């Protein structure tokens, strides 16, 4: 990185700006080397790795069950799907069955966590554009989700709730009604949030037609999840590579439509997330309605876990397709585990998309891609 900086400094006309790793709007420890001419950027070169905790390496050092708490740290903003993907990967590798009730609880916790993660994503986008109140406003809702998840699994951020073969605990008495009550409360809040910021003229002007990513680019750069759908690709792992009990649920997949600008601009990425909120709420409602018919069993604890071979599973996390590729060699530990995360690829496109933007736009671009530092570096 240092030789890059020196090479650019030498050219004279440009200014090299070092943004991060401790910059307020890089959402964690990410660094950008920005070549600017005044306010206009020529290029922003991402420098990642500041939050590299070698989680894939840790997976090789502990047992399959013992690695579960570490998966929370893959993406601590949306930890449930990371739990889920590891549990599913090992279950696929070792041919384990999961009780139906556990599948429901997994999906409910995933979707609740997706809502809380999108709360951060949308609130942080607004904050990076300069509107601070929507952030605190929507964080109040995230607080409720955190409390609900705390009632479910005792933790607010790194849940360690899913288990290989099920989930850690059944839902507590009365939790169902609390979730339903909160859903009733949250639906008008979403409409209010749209009134507050989504359709705000200034906000739209800042995000519309900003950093437009075409469908081909999005696929080639490996964008996933809301970022991909915002570019007009109608693909959702939950619907198209179904897992868990998602086939039993009815939900729409919001796709970017370019309502205020062109398809694939920053506002579309924001808007797709705002629509996913609504879908998550309907999914939670359906799950809570269906869960009553299931057996009480929520965890089939595996006796002996020494699988051999390799398996890859995909899960729709808040930042899109989170995959886990796990290789077993017949021991108690994974021989190799790999997490493929949405933020890593989203960071890869920033250099390309930053050309010609202004410094303030870079902040909006990062926020609209919903990049989370731990998910990049793992």
């Amino acid at each position: 990185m240092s030789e890059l900086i020196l090479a650019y400094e030498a050219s004279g006309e440009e200014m090299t700006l070092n943004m991060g790793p401790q910059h307020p709007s890089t959402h964690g420890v990410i660094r950008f080397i920005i070549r600017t001419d005044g306010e206009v950027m020529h290029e922003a070169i991402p420098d990642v790795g500041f939050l590299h905790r070698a989680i894939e390496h840790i997976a090789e050092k502990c047992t399959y069950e013992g690695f579960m708490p570490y998966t929370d740290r893959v993406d601590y903003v949306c930890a449930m799907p990371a739990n889920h993907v590891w549990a599913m990967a090992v279950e696929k590798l070792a041919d384990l069955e999961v009780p139906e009730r556990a599948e429901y609880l997994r999906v409910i916790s995933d979707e609740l966590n997706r809502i809380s993660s999108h709360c951060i994503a949308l609130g942080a986008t607004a904050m990076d554009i300069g509107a601070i109140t929507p952030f605190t406003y929507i964080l109040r809702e995230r607080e409720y989700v955190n409390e609900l998840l705390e009632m479910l699994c005792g933790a607010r951020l790194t849940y360690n709730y899913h288990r290989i073969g099920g989930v850690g605990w059944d839902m507590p008495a009365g939790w169902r009604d609390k979730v339903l009550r909160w859903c009733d409360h949250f639906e008008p809040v979403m409409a209010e949030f749209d009134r507050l910021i989504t359709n705000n003229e200034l906000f739209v002007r800042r995000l519309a037609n900003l950093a437009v990513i075409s469908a081909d680019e999005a696929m080639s750069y490996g964008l996933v999840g809301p970022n991909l759908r915002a570019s007009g690709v109608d693909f959702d792992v939950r619907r198209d590579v179904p897992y868990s009990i998602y086939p039993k649920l009815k939900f729409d997949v919001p796709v970017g439509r370019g309502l205020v600008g062109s398809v694939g601009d920053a506002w579309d990425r924001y808007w797709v997330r705002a629509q996913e909120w609504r879908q998550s709420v309907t999914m939670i409602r359906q799950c809570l309605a269906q869960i009553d018919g299931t057996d009480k069993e929520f965890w089939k604890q595996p006796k002996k876990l020494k699988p051999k071979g390799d398996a890859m599973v995909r899960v729709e996390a808040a930042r899109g397709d989170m995959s886990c590729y796990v290789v077993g060699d017949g021991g108690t530990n994974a021989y190799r585990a790999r997490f493929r995360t949405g933020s890593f690829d989203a960071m890869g496109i920033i250099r390309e998309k930053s050309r010609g933007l202004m410094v303030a736009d870079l902040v909006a671009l990062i926020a609209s891609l919903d990049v989370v530092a731990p998910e990049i570096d793992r």
Partner: protein
Amino acid sequence: MLVAGCGAGDGETAAIRDARPTRLQRGERMLVEASSPIFDVGAPTSVLIDALGVTLPARAVAAGRVVADVDASVERALGGRHLAAQSTITVVQSEQRWSSDPRTRFAVDLFPHSLQHLANGWAAHLPGPAWLWWAAALLMAAAIVAGPLPVIAGLIVVWERKVSGYMGSRLGPNRVGPNGWLQWLADGLKLLMKEDIIPTEADPHLFRAAPYLAFLGLFLTFVVLPFSRYLIVSDLDIGLLFLLSVTPLVVVSIIMGGWSSNSKWSLLGGMRSAAQIISYELPASVALLTVATLAGSLSTQSIVASQGGWPWQWYLFHDPFTLVAFFIWFGSALAEGNRTPFDLPEAESELVSGYNTEYSGFRFSLFPLVEWVNIAVIGAVGTMLFLGGWRIPLVDAALLERHWWIDLAGFALFIAKDLSIVFVVIWIRWTLPRFRVDQMMNLCWKYFIPFAFICFVGELAWLWLVPPLAQTIVSIAGFAIFGVGFGGWFLSRVRYNARRYQDLVLNDALGRVNS
């Protein structure tokens, strides 16, 4: 002795046409104008204020003009008292006397230079050279004017944090002092105790000087702000020009701070600020000019005095052009004060903290201090120009003279109007996102400046073409539509949202019991 035009009934032929200003203290000059060229330039001259029996030494500067000096002799004649009377003015030159028309009596105010008087008193009774006491008196006066400013800034900071807290469903500061209202004191003390760090690579002199310049630029504006009829440091004849010329001093300070910090983030912040303040100075000035045209004066007190106490007598509702001018001025004032949505120079999500990134401790604290006092200044300027200042309905000048507490009520009214503008500024900050730098420039050059000029020209046409009765009807209609109509709609929205707040926040979504 020839007595020409000594005013026994023949008003048209009165020799002295005008005298101004008539509020005088030591060191000032009064200009007396004759109806025709009658003075002998160079001959010994004096000006008599008849009702007071005061003679001022003067000199004829042209055949039609005499300048009278209010000097120490007047001070002695006053003896520390304040003399005021309705009087005719007489000029005496070479045995000749010319008087003004006795029916147009000038309201002459002669008052001692209180500071000088005070300093003289000290020097007479206490040891030490006179200039030392003069300096001490000046310092004391400065302290009295500037002393409350940190308090104002502090209270506005706490208020802003409380407002922002309630808007974001938080509590805001509530620990220090009653309900957290002394939080600013704790914050200020903390900042004072911090180490004052000057980066090694920074230019130390500019870096040190920058905050003081910001301080200076802002606090000079307090000189001309008319808080009430009598509560004003100096009612300069060029008050508005003075206001417009001292506020941009802040931009010099911001550029100095941004440049000398030797940090690229500070530099970007400083550059943005320079571009922004200089650009928005234009529409702000033109919008103010619209009002100055209407009042026919640049003196801040005259502008306030020419408005009435009732809302439809304010310049805000005077005619459509002033209404637009108000919003142009308000937008520009936000931009000049670096407030959201124009807070680009210190956009914390982009530039870390902008031009003050490298500052710490007391030096840093001056920048926010200036920023928050500036909100109060924005409010005060808006109140004075558009919202009728300290004018109270049904109170005329004579009543104001008689009861000191009416003046105090005027002051309270001024502060109330000021604070309501401050609240709007705070409210906007916590609601709106931020412009991008090119959008901000577009707004200024493509919309604000042309519309400001349209307002100015339209205002001239309005004054020229529209008869007074129609003007009155339009102002009342404007008040009815924009004041009552919009205000009522707004209040209904507030009521609705307050109920929503009740539902959303106070009734807990998870059904827990809230205290």
